[in-house]
């Protein structure tokens, strides 16, 4: 039955989910904008963040909410290392440059999925009792699941922090300058590799933060990244590939569209709406709704 209540209810949870999607996608958009490279292992970054959160809970009983900064920090290091060890060299390719860039991170994604299967087994895992898991709050008659609510708040906080960081700090300005003109930065004496490594670290940390929260209410398995990576691609495509705040808006749209689709179509078709929006954008505005490039 479609009542006003159910509609408002699902729009509200769609909005929460959308804010999380934005957080998942923003790292991808950041790297896109910074150096015009797609991280095809973005979903796998999310996957290891979720596992990390899971193991910290399972072995040390640290609640995902507490371990989230830890997970983000670990992912930061991981992202920077991936740039320094792989992507940096992929960008120097002389022959088949496009293919090299694509298949380097794509290959990394496959390795990470394989390693997860090998060491963690393909089993589905979940965090049974966390502070937030399974709880809901009621706001004006609308029930909101606590994990998603906290996730949405974290996402808003992260985007606010990112905004301040990009606009108020020297390094953030350097990041922005590199986006606009890599040559100019070299002139000012900023090491391009350091900026890029930091960009990858930051991108990974953001998706790590998202992973830590999602571990509370999502099953954790080796392929979990794939479906979220797809959503992240759609989100950045909507938001205009390199735009950080386009990812924020894109995420919200994806979340709302998904919620509305779930209202009118059977659950197995809940992604149809997102894909339809994606195709529409590719047809009409290949640069994305908020893309300025």
């Amino acid at each position: 039955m479609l009542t006003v209540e159910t509609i408002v209810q699902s729009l509200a949870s769609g909005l929460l989910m959308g804010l999380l999607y934005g957080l998942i996608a923003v790292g991808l958009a950041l790297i896109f904008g910074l150096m015009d490279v797609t991280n095809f292992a973005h979903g796998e970054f999310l996957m290891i963040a979720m596992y990390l959160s899971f193991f910290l809970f399972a072995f040390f009983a640290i609640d995902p909410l507490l371990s989230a900064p830890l997970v983000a920090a670990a992912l930061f290091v991981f992202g920077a290392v991936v740039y320094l060890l792989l992507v940096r060299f992929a960008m120097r390719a002389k022959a088949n440059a496009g293919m090299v860039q694509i298949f380097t991170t794509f290959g990394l994604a496959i390795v990470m999925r394989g390693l997860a299967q090998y060491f963690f087994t393909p089993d589905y895992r979940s965090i049974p009792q966390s502070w937030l898991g399974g709880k809901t709050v009621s706001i004006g008659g609308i029930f909101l699941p606590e994990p998603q609510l906290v996730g949405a708040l974290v996402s808003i906080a992260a985007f606010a922090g990112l905004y301040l960081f990009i606009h108020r700090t020297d390094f953030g300005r350097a990041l922005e300058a590199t986006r606009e003109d890599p040559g100019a930065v070299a002139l000012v004496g900023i090491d391009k590799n350091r900026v890029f490594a930091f960009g990858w670290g930051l991108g990974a940390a953001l998706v790590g933060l998202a992973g830590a929260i999602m571990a509370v209410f999502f099953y954790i398995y080796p392929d979990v990244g794939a479906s979220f990576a797809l959503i992240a691609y759609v989100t950045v495509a909507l938001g205009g590939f390199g735009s950080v705040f386009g990812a924020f808006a894109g995420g919200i749209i994806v979340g709302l569209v998904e919620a509305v689709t779930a209202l009118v179509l059977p659950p197995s078709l809940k992604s149809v709406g997102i894909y339809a929006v994606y195709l529409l954008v590719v047809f009409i505005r290949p640069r994305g709704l908020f893309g300025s490039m």
Partner: protein
Amino acid sequence: MDKNFAARRRRDLIIAAVLAAIAALTPLFVKDVVVQNVLILTLMYAGLSQSWNILSGYCGQISLGHALYFGLGAYTTELLFTKFGVLPWFGMLAGGTVSALIAMGLGYPFFRLRGHYFVIATIVIAEIGLLLFHNWEWAGAAMGITIPIRGDSWLKFQFARSKVPYFYFALVLCCIAWLVTWWLEDSKWGFWWRAVKDNPDAAESLGVDVFNSKMGAAAVSAFLVAVGGSFYAQFVSYIDPESVMGFQFSLLMALPAVLGGIGTLWGPVLGAAILIPLTEITRFKFGGSGSGVDLIIYGTLIVLISLALPRGLVSLFSRPKKTGATR
């Protein structure tokens, strides 16, 4: 100089003929069904990768969604066969045509996208195809289609007792894909594709119809891959969305070409000859494909080849680079 060129093309053709002849004789010696199976899959993936290479290697439009065309070939053939009694041979052509048309229809919006934007679009579109077939009741939805066994016959392209006929078909498919590539390599299309891949702006200024070059490459590539899908459906005699349209097919079409040499004539064959047996051996040693070892091997190979040998393994065989094109 022209003589050199003609001689090189003739040499390629002779090598191919010799290899095909040797391959054609193997069933006389290889009676083990498991090994036969590996050989069939190797030939099939060599042919598929060769077809993938036309769009992604020569024309430079890297697709990670070719599983869509593979699945469309399989589904078209089997739906026509089980619902309307159309023989698989016609189904094969129908599947190829449907796929080529869909590839061109998708090309219309997608070919405006460059580089990784295009790659993402191909991944998404294959996922959409998978989703639709999962929910399409008439086409068996998630349950898929079991192909009714009507006895061994070339007419119905069905063989339960021996795998050898499938082997020969896979061999022919691989040879056709190779020959098409060989022929196109020295044609206007072949030159246009490589020009579009290397520098679309310069190509445009030389009168190349960039958009239609891509469309042509997509159509040929999708047609051949769909024929491969039809073959696979008959070969395994049961299809469902995951087993013919899953992402692993997109992966296994791209990998041999990347490994052997993307955009080269021999790359896909060489890559498949190494990769597919390796996959099967790993599966045998480590059990099931769920262990992840196969993925670790694939991924490591892709990363290493991309970074260390971007022209693929065939570049190890090419003469010193000052004397001519890498082949």
